[in-house]
């Protein structure tokens, strides 16, 4: 998409098409000859893996929607009927439910990789921001999807999350309640809610697919960042995407699918909650309402704040913060490989997210060796925001980065680049 196109039509038909709709040229330039840094490691294969995950969710989702009934009285039984009576329905549903977790696993690796190697820094700010948008859309889609089986966690999770909007009552009385009622389409989570969530759950993946298109388009303007975080300086620094990265991505994708398959076939309910195999019952509240694992850190932040409205603002703020990361990082160096101080705080941040996730998975009043987890979650929340808003700007200014290699080729091949740079 950027730079000279190297596409030459090989047949009359291709030439005919190319002159009218240069789709083959686009495919050729973006997926075949696209110059890609030669030093991308395993963590850079997750972009392709995520595209695969989106495809799997859409394909299995379309099949599930053929059998699913979005009706509060029938939804639970229809899911169970998919599991028992539809040919290979158990396989399709387990791929879809496990797939959601695998999708988030991959997206977290992808995001932490971006953070570690400074992939959000100029000129890739928009790639990062579009990525944050995709992440938020994924969370919404996953939330809607989790409601559809209409189990106990579906129902109570939906009740809890939609009720967050009622906190607006604390600013403008009744407005929050009015919004919540509008979202539900009723005075409680019910049939109307289930129907609109189903509709949105079917819609959002296609919006995600569109935004993923933008994400990849934006990526193809500056090209990939790389583990060194230095710019591509000569053709020696790159290799064509095909066959070098198609084969590398294929191998790691296959490894990822192996892990995926182990869960689907041997622990299909590993990521699920047993309570969700009990039909939704508005009269029985489960002792602990636990969201899916990928939302736990945010759930912990929300719960750690005693005041509901502030809790919601913290939750929203934790996501909005990500949008500002390209400008919060003041360092001139991208990759944490050359940022000794940032590297430590980065790993502390990763641990912080895991700790927050653990806090979110436990009951509100839980304690570990006498320490109330709500306080651990508060400190974890403090570090989450402190990492982005305080540490990132300051470390960039005070840190002395290590010496950067002259070029990617030199770093990989261990000799001075043969061609003079620029």
């Amino acid at each position, binding site marked *: 998409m950027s730079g000279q196109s190297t596409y030459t039509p090989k047949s009359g038909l291709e030439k005919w098409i190319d002159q009218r709709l240069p789709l083959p040229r686009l495919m050729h330039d973006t997926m075949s000859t696209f110059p890609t840094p030669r030093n991308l490691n395993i963590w850079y294969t997750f972009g392709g893996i995520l595209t695969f995950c989106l495809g799997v969710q859409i394909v299995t989702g379309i099949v599930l929607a053929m059998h699913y009934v979005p009706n509060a009285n029938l939804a639970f039984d229809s899911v169970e009927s998919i599991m028992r009576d539809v040919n290979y329905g158990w396989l399709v549903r387990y791929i879809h439910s496990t797939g959601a977790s695998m999708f988030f696993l991959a997206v977290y690796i992808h995001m932490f990789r971006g953070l570690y190697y400074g992939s959000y820094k100029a000129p890739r700010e928009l790639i990062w921001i579009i990525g944050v948008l995709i992440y938020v859309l994924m969370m919404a889609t996953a939330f809607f999807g989790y409601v559809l089986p209409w189990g106990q966690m579906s129902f109570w999770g939906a009740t809890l999350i939609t009720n967050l909007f009622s906190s607006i009552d604390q600013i403008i009385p009744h407005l929050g309640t009015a919004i919540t009622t509008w979202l539900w389409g009723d005075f409680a989570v019910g049939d109307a809610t289930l129907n609109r969530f189903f509709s949105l759950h079917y819609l959002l993946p296609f919006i995600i697919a569109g935004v993923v298109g933008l994400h990849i388009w934006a990526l193809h303007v500056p090209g990939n960042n790389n583990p060194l975080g230095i710019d591509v300086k000569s053709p020696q620094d790159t290799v064509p995407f095909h066959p070098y990265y198609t084969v590398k991505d*294929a191998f790691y994708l296959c490894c990822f699918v192996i892990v995926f*398959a182990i869960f689907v076939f041997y622990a299909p309910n590993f990521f699920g909650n047993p309570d969700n195999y009990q039909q939704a019952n508005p009269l029985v509240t489960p002792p602990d309402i636990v969201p899916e694992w990928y939302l736990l850190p945010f759930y912990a932040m929300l719960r750690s704040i005693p005041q509901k409205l502030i809790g919601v603002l913290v939750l929203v703020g934790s996501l909005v913060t990500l949008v500002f990361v390209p400008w919060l990082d003041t360092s001139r160096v991208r990759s944490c490989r050359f940022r000794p101080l940032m590297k430590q705080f980065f790993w502390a941040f990763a641990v912080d997210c895991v700790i927050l996730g653990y806090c979110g998975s436990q009951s509100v009043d839980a304690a570990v060796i006498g*320490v109330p987890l709500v306080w651990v979650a508060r400190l974890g929340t403090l570090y989450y925001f402190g990492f982005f808003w305080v540490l990132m700007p300051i470390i960039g200014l005070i840190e002395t980065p290590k010496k950067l290699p002259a070029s990617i080729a030199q770093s990989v091949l261990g000799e001075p680049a043969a061609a003079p740079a620029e």
Partner: protein
Amino acid sequence: MMRIAFPYGLVLGGLALGLLASAPALALDTTKLPVKDVQFSFDGPFGTYDQAALQRGFQVYKEVCSACHSLDHIAFHDLDEPGGLGFTEAQAKAIAAGYKIPADPNDKGEITDDKGNRLMRPGILADKFPPPFPNEQAARANNDGNLPPDLSMVVKARDGGAHYVYSIVTGFHMTPPKGFTVTAGKYYNPYFEGWNIGMPPPLTDNAVTYSDGTKATVDQEAHDVATFLAWASDPKMEERKRAGFGALVFLLVLAGLLFFSYRRVWADLH
């Protein structure tokens, strides 16, 4: 940051412990006990259902549990499905015919006979197991206000699965600890959250007579019915594990081929 956080935590923890120690006698902790450690034939990646145990467990369900518990998601044709109980189609038909199912309206559009009794017909393979009570209210009215849960998904719907079912049905007849009073109309069962369970001890020795000569102890019956309910929750388990084995063999071979392709393609770069 994390290094600063830790001492704070310890200080707070110390304070919390101090408060706990000075507090008056704590309420009894009635968290359910961990499930009993028993082995099942379907444990592990290659485990399959023990067909004889499934048939015995079905007998326990039919003769004991089904008096109160429904099995809504199971149809009679499930009984002759592969990977399950191993009944023949004729046997499944005979079992279905032993149940009475509310009939559709007759030619005159009636669903009751002259005396006002609901018209019934024998079950067929396509029918689901009929519930013991027509509705929740009837179930509660017949069980001291307790609602016996449907059992078709109970193993999937409880932490601990089949082990939980086994622990519950064998977890009666123990003396409650001092300070714990069993609620009127309930029974003491420490494997149940809160320790008060609405279900009376369901199994006794020789509650059923097994046709294969197996001695019907409470333990044996519990183990068999837990196996049967595990199948009821997950009738596709054997198919799933078999398909998974094939899928993994295929993926591992593919990964190997891709790995060598990857090495070969990249070899000329270094």
